[in-house]
Structure formats: C-alpha cells, structure tokens
C-alpha cells in the first residue's frame, strides 16, 4: 500500500472567489498530503477552474486562506508558480520544437541551470525509452508519446505538486491507462497530484476525491467511502447523485 506522508502540500480554508454578485467558489476547505492523488471533480460551471486558478497563483481569492507547496496564495503567488507543475490536454508543449528543446525551454523557465537540464534530459530519455525521439519535433510524435512527454515536462523541475487539468480527454483507452500508470510512478517518488477529469473510472484511481457542486465541495473522501456513503456501485453513480443537486444551471 502506498504510504501517504503527513506533510501537507495544499491547505485551503474557507476559500471564496466572487465575480461581482456571483460566487464562483463558495467557502471551500480541504488539505492534500504529500504523495497523494487528489481528484477534483465537478460538473461544468461548478467552479473547478476558478478554484484551480487560485491554487496555481493565477487568481487572487476574495476571501479565505490557502497555501500551496508552503507558499501563501495571496502574498506569494510567484513562489507558488515556481513550485508547481501544470498540464492540460489543451496545452502542454510547443509542437514546433523538438523533444529536447521543449525540455530545455521549460527547464530554463523554471530556473534550472544548463548542466542540470542536460543531466535530467538524459535521464528522462533513458527512462522513457525515448532516445530515438529526442531530436524529433513534438508534433510528429504519436499521441501516446506526447502524453507521456507532456506529463514528464510538467514535472521536469521536480515540483512539489502537479496540477493536471483533464489530462486524458480524447485519448484512446490504452493510452489513458498507461498515463495513469505514470501518475502512480510519480507519486511513488513523492510528487503530489491534483487532477480533474470527466472520466469517472479515473476517479477510482485517486486516493481521495472531492466533488464540487455550485461552488461548494459537497463530498470529499476516498472513492471507497464515497461509494459506501452514497450506496453507489461506482463513482459515476456518486457523481450523478451529487451533481444533480445543482441549481446553477444558469451559470
């Protein structure tokens, strides 16, 4: 069994974000421990993106407290940004750059020096078995390779926590599963994973899952406990029960 450490990587208390009279994120509180895979679920418009933007230091909260990787999201957003990784299906790498150029670019942006970038690039190419792809343009890679590489780029600077925003959308079923196997390997190395997905089978792969409805966290527990609480046979049923409570159709 994976041992999740007691160190807290994300801590949020009564976090709220308002846009005018609209409360996008309404008083949410939770903690994520080091090495944990934390699933952040919710219907479209439930407030997931807004909450995630605050955690990534991209949006200042209206109220509440929050620290990510030990830094305050109000007063130290730049330090937060340096300590996290981010990947989404929509954007992850520069397609017109070669594999190694992407690594050099992202490593450089995150302040890694040339020597470390070189050593880590060699290590990564060997561990991914990517030696032949090293000099290829990213756009020429098969989708499965791109996925692996995108994830590796997002954790290249060894962030404390990586945010994955629907990382597997539109990907074939085998590649999707291989991707989750990579996530497991990363958490075994102590990286914390904060992930959103619309695939409910993937919710089962998380250590804990929160479900947002209308800006609030309606449920937060392990998939096993959630299924027991809601007398559901799978996470899709849990999600359907909770998300149907939503009154925010008119977002």
């Amino acid at each position, binding site marked *: 069994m*994976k041992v999740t450490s007691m160190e807290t990587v994300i801590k949020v208390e009564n976090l709220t974000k308002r846009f005018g009279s609209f409360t996008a994120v309404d008083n949410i509180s939770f903690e994520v421990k080091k090495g944990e895979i934390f699933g952040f679920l919710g*219907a479209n418009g439930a407030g997931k993106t807004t909450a995630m933007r605050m955690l990534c230091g991209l949006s200042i909260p209206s109220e509440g407290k929050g620290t990510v990787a030990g830094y305050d999201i109000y007063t130290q957003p730049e330090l937060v940004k340096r300590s996290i990784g981010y990947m989404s299906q929509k954007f992850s790498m520069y397609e017109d750059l070669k594999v190694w150029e992407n690594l050099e670019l992202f490593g450089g942006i995150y302040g890694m020096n040339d020597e470390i970038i070189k050593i880590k690039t060699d290590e990564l190419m060997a561990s991914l078995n990517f030696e032949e792809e090293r000099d290829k343009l990213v756009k*020429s890679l*098969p*989708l499965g390779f791109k996925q692996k590489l995108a994830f590796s780029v997002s954790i290249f600077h060894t962030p404390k926590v990586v945010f994955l925003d629907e990382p597997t959308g539109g990907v074939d079923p085998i590649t999707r599963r291989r991707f*989750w196997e990579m996530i497991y390997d990363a958490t075994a190395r102590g990286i914390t994973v904060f992930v959103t997905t*619309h695939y409910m089978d993937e919710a089962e792969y998380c250590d804990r899952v929160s479900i947002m409805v209308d800006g609030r966290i309606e449920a937060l527990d392990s998939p096993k406990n959630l299924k027991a609480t809601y007398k559901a046979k799978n996470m*899709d049923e849990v999600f359907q029960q909770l998300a149907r409570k939503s009154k925010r159709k008119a977002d």
Partner: protein
Amino acid sequence: MIEVKNISKNYFSEKSGKFAGIGSDGGVSLSVPKGEIFGIIGPDGAGKTTLFRILTTLILADSGTATVNGFDVVKDYKKIRECVGYMPGRFSLYQDLTVEENLEFFATVFNTTIEENYELIKDIYIQIEPFKKRRAGKLSGGMKQKLALSCALIHKPTVLFLDEPTTGVDPVSRKEFWGMLKKLKQQGITILVSTPYMDEASLCDRIALIQNGQFLKIDTPDNIVNQFEDKLWAAKSNNMHKLLDDLRKNKLVKSAFAFGDSVHVTVSSEQLSVIILTDYLTGLGHKNVEIHTIEPTIEDCFMGLSNNQI
C-alpha cells in the same frame, strides 16, 4: 439514409506533421438506415472529423462514394446542405451574436423562421431561452452545446451530423444530451454522432469503432460485446498497484489494465483458471484476492481490437 462506400481521404496535417485522415487502407464503408442513431467511437486523430466533413460536403474524398438522403456528396452537394444539420466539434456559432440572434441567423440562412420549426427545438431551446439576450461567447459549455444543437435543427433536417457533441462535457450534462438525441430519433431523424467516450456506445443503435483511420468493427453494441473472444476477469486485491504488475508478469495473462476499482484481465489460454490465478497472486503476497468473470464493456472490446499496445 447514409451510404458510405470505400471512402478514403488522406492529407498532410500541418498540426501533427504527418499524414492523417481516413481509409488509407482500402477505404471505409458504412450504411445507416433512417431513424438510426449511429455512433462513430474512437480517440482523437482516428479520422472521425474527416468522415463528417466528407459527408457534410465540406471536403472531397480522395476515392470512394457516399450519399446522404440518396444525394451524392459530390454532384448533389447543394441538396445535401439543405437537408442535413451539422454540429462541428469546435463551437462554431457567432460568439458576438446573442443566443436568439444566432438561432435567427441560421433560420434565415435556410429560408425559414424560428416559429415555423419551433416544435422541433422546443425541448432543447426552452432550457436556454431565459438567456436569449446573452452573447453566445458568454455561455457555459453545456449551454453552448444546447444552442449549437438548436441551430443545427432549426431548418428541420432529416439527417443530423454531430461531431463530438459531448467532449469535455461533464457526466450529468452528457446524460441529458443523449436524452435529447433519443427524442429526436423518435421524430424520425437519422443521427450520426461521434464520441471519444466509450460508455456512450450503449446509447447508440449501432456503432463503428474507429482507430487510425480504420473501422475496427461495425455492429450493434450487444453484438460487439458478444464477439469478445478472450476470457475476461475482474481482479482486486489489497494492493492494486502491485496487482497490475504481478498480473502482467504472469505469462498466461494476455493483458491487464486498470478499470475503475478493479483490474480487467484477459486470458486466452485454457490453462489458466480463476483458482490458479488466485493462488498465484496469494503466493506473491496479495491479500483479499477477488477474481470473477465479467461481461466485457465496449471499452474492453475496443482495447482488445486495438492494435495500439504502446
């Protein structure tokens, strides 16, 4: 209503830097009768959109023929455009026009009015009508989807082409959307719909599983499931991560992949039984081992048929 014979289209994709398209190996064929919901199911880059663009007369195929409503996609393209509705994968309405203006625009283009065909879109449009003065660009994902469907229906098409209407949409809204499609089917509309979500397969009358520009299989979801060749078991133990590794190390196991809270194991050998595999795992230190035979899902079938084993 839709007849596709040996269609192929290959082009150099600037985006992916390689050849993409559909039917590179002899073309693809399919036939969809009136009133059927036919699903094209497969991942990004499989060729779904290329097929939709050929059938909606937006691009020409390299080879093969296709008809929609009996009209040829090349010779009678104007007639096809009058009688089909098309909802592209990317939101393609006018972001700067309001909900109402978009709908009115599409009605006018097709020489009709919202009032004339309101009955058809009523159930869908009524949900976004309270926001009819809002610009389309300011709508949420779910509302954009409903507006796009309303616009695709406003000229009362007989065939509807929906290219990934539920991609990026949450499970609750996806269920609602399929409910709407069912109602449209009851009114006799033929629907060709594509999706990367394998769990939507069972909502179609028939499906084509597609990968790398080829159909892996065309049949009803039930028949595809019945044709699954291997034994399929769901396995659980107290250590799910190690379970996956240990199952793959067993030479009689053909494949092992995580499936929600269990691992799905395919076995083609007669030598391996549930009891033998349970003993094998227990011997490797697994506790609470549970293995039982299960019915395959469409996703299991896709993975079995797929040649993508990277």
